[in-house]
């Protein structure tokens, strides 16, 4: 399967997962599960940031249409796509990333994935709840929602990877 078809299928799978399953789950305690950032995370290393942001915007808008949030998911996903190369550069190996590998937990290791995806998820969730609530006297509530949502989202993303992707065939 070529890289393009693989990513198109992933795009559809993640939109369906987020819009029809995770957006419908109501757990309480202000937990809001969001797994679609994983799609932006798993795009190839060599992809340019402008096409990243374009894809993020498209995906965000589609999820917004399904959940009546009118651009909220799009805004936070574009935010995350903008920061992705910056965080990648910061934690990257000195000789640069191997283009045959994928930025998944299997190819890059637990430590790298936890740090990079953790930061990106933090940016995404924080921006999402900041724009959604948008009241500065509720700042503690924003932080509480961010922290409570990140932890289960992160672990579900870890689980999803073992269902959806395989280790790349590199020596």
């Amino acid at each position, binding site marked *: 399967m070529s890289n393009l078809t693989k990513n198109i299928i992933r795009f559809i799978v993640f939109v369906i997962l987020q819009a*029809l399953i995770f*957006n*419908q789950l*109501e*757990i*309480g305690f*202000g*937990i*809001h599960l969001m797994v679609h950032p994983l799609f932006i995370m798993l795009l190839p290393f060599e992809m340019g*940031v*402008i096409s990243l*942001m*374009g894809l993020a*915007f498209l995906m*965000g*808008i589609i999820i*917004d*249409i*399904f*959940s*009546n*949030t*009118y*651009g*909220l998911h*799009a*805004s936070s996903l*574009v*935010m995350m796509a*903008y920061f992705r190369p910056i965080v990648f550069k910061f934690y990257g190996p000195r000789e640069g990333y191997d283009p045959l590998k994928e930025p998944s937990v299997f190819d890059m290791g637990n430590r790298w994935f936890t740090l990079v995806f953790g930061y990106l998820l933090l940016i995404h969730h924080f921006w999402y709840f900041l*724009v*959604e*609530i948008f009241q500065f006297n*509720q700042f503690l*509530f924003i932080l509480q929602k961010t922290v409570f949502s990140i932890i289960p989202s992160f672990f579900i993303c870890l689980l999803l990877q073992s269902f959806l992707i395989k280790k790349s065939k590199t020596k």
Partner: protein
Amino acid sequence: MINFAFMRNLIAFLRRFRIFLVFAFLQVISLLIYVQFLSFPRSQYLTTASNVTAKVLTWENDVTKHFDLSKNNWALQRENIRLRQRLPEFMYTLSTTKVKVEDTVFEQQYTYIPGEVINSSVTRRNNYFTLNIGSKQGVKRDMGVFSDKGVVGIVHNVSEHYCVVKSVLTEDINIDVIIEPIHIEGILKWDGHDARRGSIDGISNDLRIKKWSRVVTRGGSGIFPKGIPVGKVESIKPIEGESLWDVVIRYSEDYRTLQRVYVVKNLMIEEQKALEGLIPPDKEEDLLQ
């Protein structure tokens, strides 16, 4: 030559900051859509009222609606009993000298359109419900929506077969309610924390409110009939520095499992609007005096 240098600088600038410019452009677009649609949706295409989205959500609902089936049947049965008890055949006649009167005193003001919730959320800051009825069934913007247990919201956006309801779990829902039995008026608000509790604004703290007194709609603006249940007063606290109570209510409807709702159609809304439109707007000079 100056012009040429300027152009070259501009292109260099755009090249250098093109990533940030694209980023800013996309952010501005998405936030603009967000702010605009929160207050007044200009089209149905970016909401769940659009045909494709609603169709997909209907498929999903066809699967998930059976999860609460027995509970919903039970609720409908209870409502039926409540209504049946009002029928004259179900009452024991105390007076034997009953006279039948042709009734010309009452005229129908409200009719109801039944509908089903196909998509909902309760955990966001602003929660919307999608119903499977639309303009073909006579739903219009700003109609009230309620269920057998309590008030649900106001219609926000309509397409041909679907509509989106702005629920009471949104920031600026502002339904006018009264606290029974002594008719204290206030405005319903939601702070975004708990889907089971809301609050009432604008109640002066010299009024005495009993705990667990019923809260119902006031029916002043013609969106809801009078007396649709909203909830019960759970706690009353003074707000510091203001002469108002902070009244927390517990909703009588559990919005997390809501399925069957009714849309209120007020047959006299045009008349009321036309009459209220005759009131001259407040002039600035009057306000300053």
